[in-house]
C-alpha cells in the first residue's frame, strides 16, 4: 500500500490523474460501489420506507391520501383472513423448503461427486436454463399436464384409472413451487459440494465410514452454510410467490400474495395491502436472520 501511494510523487506529467486513483486506495471501492449504493437507495430503500409510510395513509373515494392512522394495521392484523393466509403461506413455504432440500441434495450429490466432468457441466447447464425461462409458461405447461383432461389423466384413463384430482390442491401447488425453487436449490448445493475437499471424503472412507455416514458426518457439515442458503432462498421464493398459488390452486386458499392483490382489487386499498406487504417482509427478514444465525453457528 505504501509503495503504491509513493508512486505519484515520482511521476511526470500524468501526476494529477494518477494521484486521484492510485493516491487514495479507498477511492476505488467508493467509485465502484457508488452506483450500486445509489441504485439500492433509489429502488429499494426509498420504496421500502414509502411502503411503510403509506401503511398509515387513507383511501378516500379510491384516492390515496396522506394521513397518520393506525386503522390499516388494526384492521389487517385483526382479520381472520390475514391470520389464515399467513399460517397457510408459512406452511406452504416450509413444506416446499423441506421438499426442495430433500430432492435437491441427492441430485446435487450425484451431479457434483459422481458424474464425470463433462456430464456434470451438462447437468448444471440444464439446471440453469429453466431459471432463465418463463416461470409463467412452465406453470401453464403443468396445467396441461395435471388438469382433469390433461396428459397424466388421459394416460391413466387408458389403464382404467382416474381421473385423479391432480390440479387444484396442495400437490399441484408444491409441484408449481418446486418448478421455481428446485433448480436453484440443486445449483446451490451442487456448487457447494463441488467445493468440498475430496481429501476429507477419502479420509473418512479410509477410516471405514460407510457412504451414508460420510454424507451425514462429512459432507453435510462441510456445506452447512450452502444448505442454509438453499433453504432460505427456497423459503423466500415460495413465501412470496403469486403465480403458483393462483394458477395451480385457483387461489384456494389464498396466500398472502393473493391477499395483497385482493385487497387492492376492491376499493384500491393500497395502505392495507402495504400492511400485508410489510408483514411479509418482516417474516422474510426473520427467516433470513435465523438462517444467518444458524449458518454462523457452524462457522464458529
Amino acid at each position, binding site marked *: 500500500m505504501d509503495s503504491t501511494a509513493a508512486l505519484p510523487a515520482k511521476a511526470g506529467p500524468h501526476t494529477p490523474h494518477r494521484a486521484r486513483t492510485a493516491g487514495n486506495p479507498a477511492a476505488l471501492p467508493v467509485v465502484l460501489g457508488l452506483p450500486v449504493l445509489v441504485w439500492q437507495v433509489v429502488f429499494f430503500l426509498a420504496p421500502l420506507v414509502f411502503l411503510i409510510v403509506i401503511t398509515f395513509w387513507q383511501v378516500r373515494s379510491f384516492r390515496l391520501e396522506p394521513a*397518520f392512522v393506525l386503522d390499516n394495521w388494526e384492521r389487517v392484523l385483526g382479520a381472520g383472513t390475514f391470520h389464515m393466509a399467513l399460517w397457510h403461506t408459512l406452511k406452504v413455504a416450509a413444506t416446499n423448503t423441506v421438499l426442495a432440500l430433500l430432492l435437491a441434495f441427492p441430485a446435487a450429490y450425484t451431479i457434483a461427486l459422481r458424474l464425470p466432468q463433462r456430464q456434470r457441466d451438462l447437468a448444471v447447464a440444464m439446471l440453469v436454463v429453466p431459471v432463465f425461462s418463463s416461470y409463467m409458461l412452465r406453470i401453464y405447461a403443468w396445467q396441461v399436464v395435471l388438469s382433469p383432461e390433461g396428459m397424466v389423466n388421459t394416460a391413466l384413463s387408458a389403464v382404467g384409472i382416474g381421473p385423479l384430482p391432480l390440479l387444484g390442491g396442495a400437490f399441484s401447488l408444491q409441484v408449481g413451487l418446486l418448478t421455481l425453487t428446485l433448480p436453484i436449490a440443486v445449483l446451490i448445493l451442487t456448487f457447494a459440494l463441488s467445493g468440498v475437499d475430496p481429501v476429507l471424503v477419502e479420509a473418512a472412507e479410509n477410516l471405514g465410514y460407510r457412504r451414508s455416514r460420510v454424507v451425514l458426518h462429512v459432507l453435510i457439515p462441510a456445506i452447512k452454510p450452502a444448505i442454509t442458503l438453499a433453504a432460505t432462498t427456497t423459503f423466500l421464493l415460495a413465501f412470496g410467490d403469486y403465480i403458483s398459488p393462483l394458477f395451480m390452486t385457483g387461489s384456494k386458499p389464498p396466500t398472502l400474495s393473493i391477499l395483497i392483490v385482493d385487497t387492492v382489487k376492491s376499493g384500491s386499498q393500497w395502505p392495507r395491502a402495504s400492511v400485508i406487504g410489510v408483514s411479509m417482509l418482516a417474516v422474510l427478514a426473520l427467516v433470513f436472520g435465523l438462517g444467518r444465525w444458524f449458518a454462523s453457528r457452524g462457522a464458529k
Partner: protein
Amino acid sequence: MTDPLLPPRKSRRHFLKTGAALGATGLGVGSALLPRDADAADPKVLNYLAWPGNADPYVVGEFEKEHGVKIRIKEYVGGDQMMAVVNQSPPGTYDVVLADAEYMHLLKAADFIEPLNPADYALKDFWPEFQKFPLHWFDGKLYGVMIDFGYLGISYNTKAFTAKEVSSYSVLWSEKAKGKVGFFDWYLPSMGCISLSNGNRPPYDLDKAKFEGLKKKLFSLKPQASGFYTIADIFSSMTNGRALLIPGIGEWITLGLRMSGVPVDTIIPEEGGIQYTESLSIVKGTTKRDLARKFIQYTISPRGQVAMATKVDNRKSIPSMAGWKLLNETKPKEAEILRMTLKGPNVMDEYKQKKIQLRQLPQKQSIEDWNDVWSQFKAL
C-alpha cells in the same frame, strides 16, 4: 389532549411531509421511467379508458379511418381499477371512458364525466327498456350511453349437466357438483348470483339480516368450490374440466368457447340473472369533446353496434334495434347464435320476463364489507 399512542403533532406533520416527499420522489422516478403522454393533447388522438379489447381495429378501425384519428386505449380490468386510474390521472389525460353502469355514479361523484345532450345520440333506436336506463341519469341529466350488455347466470359443462339440472342455483350445492364449482374471482357478480339464489331482489340491496343470510349461504358453498379464477383461467378451467359450473358469468365467456367446440352453455336460472351493461361517457375537461361525441355516435350506430356484438373474443348483446336489424341483414347466422333475431326468441325475453336484475354496487354495505366476506369465503 394529545393521544399517548400517537407521536406529537410536530412529528406527525413531519411524518406526513416526509411520506409525501418520498411518495413524490417515487412517483417522479416512476413517471420518468414511463412513456410520456406526449400526444394526450394531440387533436388526432382520442384517449380512451376502457376494458381490454375495445380499441381492436375490428371495432374502431372504421372510425379511425373515417375521421383520420387514432384511438389510444388505456386498459383496465375491473371498475375499482378504473376508479383508481381516474383518480390518479391529471385532467385531460382521457377523452372518453367506458364504464360498467354500476360505477357511473362514482364517476359522476368524482366529477370525472360531463352531462351529455340526449339529442346528440340515437337513443330512440334502442329497445324501449334501454332508452332511459336508470343508472345513466342523474338529476334528469344523461351521463352515459349504453353500448352493450349481457346476462350473468350459471355457465355449465353440457356433458356433465343438463339444462334442466341447472335451471336453479340449487344445483351448485348438489352432490354431483362437489369440488367442481368454479368462481369468477370478483365478489360482485359471484355474490350477486348467490344473493339471487337466497331470494333477494334486488340482490345488492340487503339489510343486515339479509346480508348475514347471504354470508351464511355463500360459506355453505365452500365444499363445492374448485377454485377462484381470473378471466383467463375461467376459459381454461371450463375447457379442461376443472370447473363444471360457474355462477356469475355468462355468454361473454361461453359463446366463444362453444364456437371453439367446448361443450359449455349459459342459463339464467329460475331465481333470475344479473345484467351488466357497458356505457360510454365524455371525460370532463376534454379538449376533444366533438371527437368524443362522434366516437360515441359511431359506437351506437348500426355499424358500430354490429362490430361490438361480433367481436371475436368477447361477444355481447347490443341495445340498438337498428343494430339488430343490420346484424340480421348482414350476418343472420351470427344473429341467431347471439340470440338477437327480430322474430322468435331472443335475449330480450329474459328481460321482459323480469328475470334480470341490474348489477349494482352494494347499497347498504361498503365495497370493503362485501369484499371482506368474499376473502373470508376464499380462505375457509
